[in-house]
């Protein structure tokens, strides 16, 4: 500011040119060496241990701020079982951890367990430990494998879904539709709709009765959930979108199923099934609108369930997004709160034991539901956490266990690349709902932005 303010500060032209010349020379000499240090060593452990011995050890766990309560509890339970291992939970806020993760993992003070939002280039840059040896040692390979689909990364470092295991989660998210029981009664809804047609009929009735059919947070991606549920319905399977999510080469979202899904969603918008401010509502506002009775349905995820139960126990219900026709396969989106072991971790054996513990221990699994609001997966015969009867948390837990068996769980399209949600899905669904783009254009843009983001 003061530089601009002072009238005498303007340098004479020749000096400016000299500066530019110096800068250019400096830039050219800089350019002689490429940035980046390359891989930081091996990410595959040699001999592994599952016995933690008796030596006093401190396991450093780095998670995002909202995870702290859960991981503190998990750490305490782990310490009770392995008295020589103390778990030290540290946290960063979500955005900081997401944006700094590669620097945290390549630095000098590396944690033993870390929460990651997406793999990005972490595997390619050899920053994470390959968990395959531990998976066989602890028997994770005998569990339902769909729970590990999103945390397996192929040898090329970017394609997910197959390859080596690089992370596990204490619990899983799940999407579906919440409904307001009092408003449901007003429109004569006695059971959850079992087909898309039945679902639409209920929305039409609600609209006619002056009730907003759908509450959704269109500002930060909620309408994208509806689009993906419809997409999986019309495709008849989660496979096409799952391949796309996993960055399988040649997979495309520019398909007739996507166009059909977008067409239906646009029709819902035209019919007034969304609130008029849908594009301005975010994730913190939408549950408030829903719990205050402003709409019949709220398509969202199980992370909302504890909040809905505390806002009005017994007032809200949950059902899975219905298939196109009655009797069809149900599907939902899921994601795990992935935790991984850094390649430079000081205590990889204790870290792997901790990961095994949080997936299998009964107390840990109960903590995961109570404090994390997500559902543990783990082995088929894993303990089933208890939930209050009639609670939406209970409804989401049983829905998840059903879908885990029928393999009806797909990743979120929003996680296909790091910024596909911000760059394409959110703006495109906003345009669609506002009638500013066509379903064909939406499908085409999603695919072209995806290709562009993967290109580098």
């Amino acid at each position, binding site marked *: *500011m003061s530089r*601009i*303010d002072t*009238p005498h500060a*303007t340098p004479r032209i020749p000096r400016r040119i000299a500066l530019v010349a110096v*800068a250019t020379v*400096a*830039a050219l000499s*800089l*350019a002689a060496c*490429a*940035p*980046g*240090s*390359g*891989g930081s060593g091996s990410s595959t452990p040699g001999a592994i241990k599952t016995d933690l011995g008796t030596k006093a050890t401190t396991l450093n766990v780095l998670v995002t701020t909202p995870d702290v309560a859960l991981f503190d509890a998990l750490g305490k339970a782990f310490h009770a079982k392995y008295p020589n291992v103390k778990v030290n939970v540290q946290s960063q806020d979500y955005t900081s951890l*997401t*944006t700094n993760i*590669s*620097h945290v993992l*390549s630095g000098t003070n590396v944690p033993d367990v870390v929460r990651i939002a997406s793999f*990005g*280039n972490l595997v*390619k*840059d050899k*920053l994470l430990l390959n968990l395959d040896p531990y998976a066989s040692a602890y028997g994770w390979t005998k569990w339902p494998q769909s729970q590990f689909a999103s945390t397996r990364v192929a040898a090329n470092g970017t394609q997910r879904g197959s390859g080596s295991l690089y992370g596990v989660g204490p619990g899983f998210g799940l999407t579906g539709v919440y409904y307001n029981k009092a408003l449901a009664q007003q429109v004569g809804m006695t059971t959850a709709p079992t087909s898309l047609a039945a679902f639409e009929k209920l929305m039409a009735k609600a609209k006619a009765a002056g009730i907003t059919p759908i509450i959704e947070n*269109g*500002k*930060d991606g909620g309408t994208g959930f509806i689009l993906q549920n419809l997409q999986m319905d019309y495709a008849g399977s989660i496979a096409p979108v799952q391949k796309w999510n996993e960055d399988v080469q040649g997979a495309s979202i520019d398909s007739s199923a996507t166009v059909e899904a977008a067409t239906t969603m646009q029709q819902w918008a035209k019919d007034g099934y969304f*609130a*008029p*401010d*849908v*594009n*301005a*509502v975010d994730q913190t*506002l939408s549950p408030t609108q829903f719990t205050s009775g402003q709409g019949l349905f709220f398509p969202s995820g199980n992370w909302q369930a504890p909040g809905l139960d505390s806002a009005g126990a017994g007032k809200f219900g949950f059902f899975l997004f219905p298939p196109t026709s009655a009797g069809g396969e149900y599907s939902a989106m899921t994601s795990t709160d992935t935790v991984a072991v850094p390649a430079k971790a000081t205590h990889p054996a204790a870290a792997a034991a901790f990961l095994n513990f949080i997936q299998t221990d009964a107390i840990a699994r109960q903590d995961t539901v109570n404090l994390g609001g997500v559902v543990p997966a783990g082995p088929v015969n894993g303990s089933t956490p208890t939930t209050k009867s009639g609670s939406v948390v209970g409804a989401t837990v049983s829905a998840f266990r059903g879908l885990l068996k029928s393999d009806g769980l797909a990743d979120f399209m929003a996680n296909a*690349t*790091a*910024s596909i949600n*911000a*760059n394409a899905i*959110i*703006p*495109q669904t*906003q*345009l669609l709902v*506002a009638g*500013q*783009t066509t379903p064909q254009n939406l499908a085409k843009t999603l695919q072209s932005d995806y290709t562009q*983001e993967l290109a*580098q």
Partner: protein
Amino acid sequence: MGIVSGQPRIRRRHPDWHGLLWVLPALVVYTAFVLYPLLQSVQYSFYNWDGVGEATWAGLANWESLFTDPEMLHAVGNAFALIVFYTVVPILLGLLGAALIRQVRPGPFGTATRVALFVPQVIPLVGAGIAWSWLYSQTGLVNQFLAWIGLGSLGRAWLGDFTFALPAVGVIGIWVMLGFCTILLLSGMGRIDPSLYEAARLDGAGSVAEFFAVTLPGLRQEIVVCVTFTIIAALTSFDIIQVSTQGGPGYQTLVPGVDVYRLAFLDQHLGQASALAIFLTLMVLAIIIPVQQLRRVR
């Protein structure tokens, strides 16, 4: 005459290195934390690099895509539209406001007005962005006010509206910039020689003629500073938009600053992000350097 002609010779023999010594600490810091990162960004813009792994030479690819991506061009267009809200309106209103405040006798009212106008400069913009998005929501204060004066039918979710989102964000910009411009112009007015006003009044000028003949020319320096500062703020805007609309609805409020953030910190395409950031810097320089020339003409 002899002294004058002798001076350059003396200077040549003893170049004034003392000055440099005084500047050195600042220069070291400036070089380490501004110039060096700037040059690094220029270098990165020619590579594909994720910030950790090995970088690969990209040639001009990152620069080419700046000019071929329609979303990117649209974002630049939005940044220019914001100049109206960040620069034109605050300076016009600031001139008016400063002229009015000057008429008020020094006292609690004048002080309170200045403080109120300057508060937006002190409040963190992220907090302000959140507060503004509440004001603009369907049930927010803006719509409540419209309903109260009987214009409830005009109410809408302003930041989610395809026509009004950009102007709504622009109004936040006016709110931020107005205080800065007003205070600066006010202090500039205090610097103007009172005898000029006296002369104007003797010549029979009214307050309007006085404003255009004395005040406005006297404020040339301050206006140029306001224009420079606010244009930079408009073209590089990021925080308010990231918090209030995230570039939406659709791409209506997307600006290059938000794009740079996404490319660097979400996509980890540091090369592409650097190219856009350097382009943004050059664009800002290309606009504000000519503006500086206005200051010299007297």
